[in-house]
């Protein structure tokens, strides 16, 4: 490295980023995570079928927004931590997973651009939980969370239409409508809508194509 000058900030600007619409919603039987599938470098769509919903434990998943490289690295480290945790102390709670995310995001806040939603289903209490970890590395437990650039356009819609303890079908409809609006108004969001449903019965993936959600 000696003699080679690297301007990290210049490199960072060109980085692949998840200018995103992501959300996670608790409901009667658990929790559902949702995301669009667009990844951009500036205004070029680097990947139009991205999977932004990432497993860190069997029933603890996260939605990633911000730098793709940063959030993948953080998710990988958390997955490692939870694997070790499981072998030593048993299945971690969603809170525990979220606080590992939080520690990493807080301690390295100057080097990361990562906005993460952690959502999980706890088999013991049979409850879904959602934690939002925005840019600075604070942590916020919420009944539902939205994040990413597209979320700015759906704060009003979600606030008006979210109800606690919805059924699975109601929740899927709510998320489809929300993400559809986010994608419609945010240039950095697009592609398909991916959902991951976490309940007692396990993990289920759903996918909705533009023709499914564009004209709801």
């Amino acid at each position, binding site marked *: 490295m000696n003699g080679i000058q690297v301007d990290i900030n210049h490199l960072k600007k060109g980085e692949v980023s998840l200018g995103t619409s992501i959300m996670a919603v608790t409901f009667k039987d658990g929790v559902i995570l949702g995301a669009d599938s667009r990844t951009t470098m500036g205004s070029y769509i680097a990947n139009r079928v991205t999977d932004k919903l990432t497993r860190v434990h069997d029933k603890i998943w996260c939605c990633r927004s911000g730098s793709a490289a940063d959030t993948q690295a953080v998710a990988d480290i958390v997955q490692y931590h939870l694997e070790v945790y499981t072998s030593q*102390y048993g299945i971690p709670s969603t809170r*525990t997973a979220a606080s590992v995310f939080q520690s990493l995001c807080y301690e390295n806040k100057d080097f990361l651009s990562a906005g993460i939603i952690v959502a999980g289903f706890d088999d013991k209490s049979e409850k879904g939980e959602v934690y939002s970890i925005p840019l600075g590395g604070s942590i916020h437990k919420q009944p539902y969370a939205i994040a990413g650039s597209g979320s700015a356009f759906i704060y009003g819609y979600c606030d008006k239409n979210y109800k606690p303890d919805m059924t699975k079908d109601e929740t899927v409809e709510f998320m489809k409508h929300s993400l559809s609006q986010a994608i419609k108004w945010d240039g950095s969001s697009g592609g398909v809508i991916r959902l991951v449903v976490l309940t007692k019965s396990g993990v289920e993936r759903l996918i909705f194509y533009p023709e499914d959600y564009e004209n709801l």
Partner: protein
Amino acid sequence: MTSIGTGYDLSNSVFSPDGRNFQVEYAVKAVENGATSVGIKCDDGVVFAVEKIISSKLLVPKRNVKIQTIDRHIGCVYSGLIPDGRYLVNRGREEASNFKKLYTKPIPVSALADRISQYVQAYTLYNSVRPFGISAIIGGIDEDGSHLYMVEPSGTCWGYKGAATGKGRQAAKAELEKLFDRSTDGLSVKDAIKEAARVIYIAHEDNKEKDFELEISWCSATETNGLHKFVPENLLEEAIEYAKEQLEGYEEGDSDDEAASSDEEPATGDADGDVAME
């Protein structure tokens, strides 16, 4: 001890030809000379009790505290070299604090006992250190209920319903076994306080010429809100009264039962202290 070390006892990290680590066995000896400690596990909590021999009349009564708190929900009492115990407790506190920092939840008792025992075990491996001269009884409450463990100088760590260590352990263990035989439909922490006091008083019988002070702490979901605390003054007084009362009965009734407190001991520590393994 039946054999002397013949050169193999000078260093940790060297086995004797018959596969023993003499330094660890000598550490067990230090424990066996220590004041008696007892731990009792109930459904809703744990109780710790320790005998404090009054080595000088100049000591301020009640101010020289022996039982320690590792985390808010975990207590610890030990017999043997007291400074070794204090050092180990400090290590335990670090472990508990680190766990909480990363996972934002209190460390489970089992995890703490495991980490402490691994630390103790490491002190049997290197010739630059000596093993810990203590047996530590560690217990508390976590999300899975109450737990009680005992860590020995070798690094052995077992879970117990009732644990005893120190000079009076044989008598104490015998009493604890009888106690658990009697209380088949569970034991409340409040009763366990009294019983712990009684066990310490009985264990002290062989050491009668020395005065002692009794210290009791508890950690209970119902009584202390899951926190490890010393028992209130009135409960302690009540327990001591009960113990003294029972002791009179014990001296008259069970005098032929003294085999339990015989001096003879197996040389290896492995039968030591385990009363009714969990």
